[in-house]
């Protein structure tokens, strides 16, 4: 019983981010979430896996990369009559194929740098976690 309870605690501490750590979910890669947050208010076009492409103003994004768009316009409107009465929509992150952004709003150098740093810190994190897993 005691052993089972202990191993349960260990599993939780590995899989779930600790609330005491600084930043939002610091051991989950959140770079693109942060990036898309900087795009809020911009005009974007989101292409879905069913080929539906929707243009609109990005209203919000969450950690699953679900998007909310305002004042939407469907790119190929005649093919999708059901979208004509929709003005605002929520798109589930799992069905998104592409997000088209306007180039001036994206600092690619900064993004590349951030991606590199995140990869590095993830690596460090994994190395730090290794002894803990072995001990468990």
């Amino acid at each position: 019983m005691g052993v089972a309870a202990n191993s349960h605690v260990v599993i939780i501490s590995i899989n779930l981010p600790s609330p005491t750590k600084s930043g939002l979910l610091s051991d989950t890669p959140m770079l693109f979430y942060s990036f898309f947050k900087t795009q809020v208010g911009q005009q974007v076009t989101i292409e879905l896996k069913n080929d539906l492409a929707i243009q609109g103003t990005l209203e919000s994004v969450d950690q699953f990369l679900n998007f909310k768009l305002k004042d939407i316009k469907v790119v190929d409107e005649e093919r999708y009559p059901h979208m004509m009465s929709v003005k605002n929509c929520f798109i589930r992150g799992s069905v998104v194929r592409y997000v088209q952004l306007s180039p001036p709003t994206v600092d690619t150098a900064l993004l590349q740098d951030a991606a590199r740093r995140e990869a590095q810190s993830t690596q460090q994190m994994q190395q730090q976690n290794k002894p803990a897993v072995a001990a468990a």
Partner: protein
Amino acid sequence: MSFVPQFFTTAESLVDSLDKKLLVVLRDGRKIIGILRSYDQFANLVLQDSLERIYVGDAYGDIERGVFIIRGENVVLLGEIDGDTEDALPLRQLPIEDILQMQREEAEEKARKDRLRFQLLHKQGFSVDFTDTDLY
């Protein structure tokens, strides 16, 4: 637990859609219209007084579906329906029997065309095991 609010940001983005009439597009292409009563972080949804709306060309038909519980993974998008534009749409409503008949004919026509196209492609040496019924 204190990490829950950080995880649960889908809540933030859907809370203002509660008790509103929404159009939900599902992965199999179905369109459901209903009042959003509840949801969670996976975008599992509960819709009340729901209708399934079938579109064929510029016509549509409705099937009453009552309370609809949707597993989140099947959701493509949720759209808020704008009442004013909805009334002014260049679409006509037909009895559901007619729409189902039209839908059947459309599907048969498409299957016939696909068969022809696949035969031609196959003769040219292309792989034709692709279908567009489930793209996800």
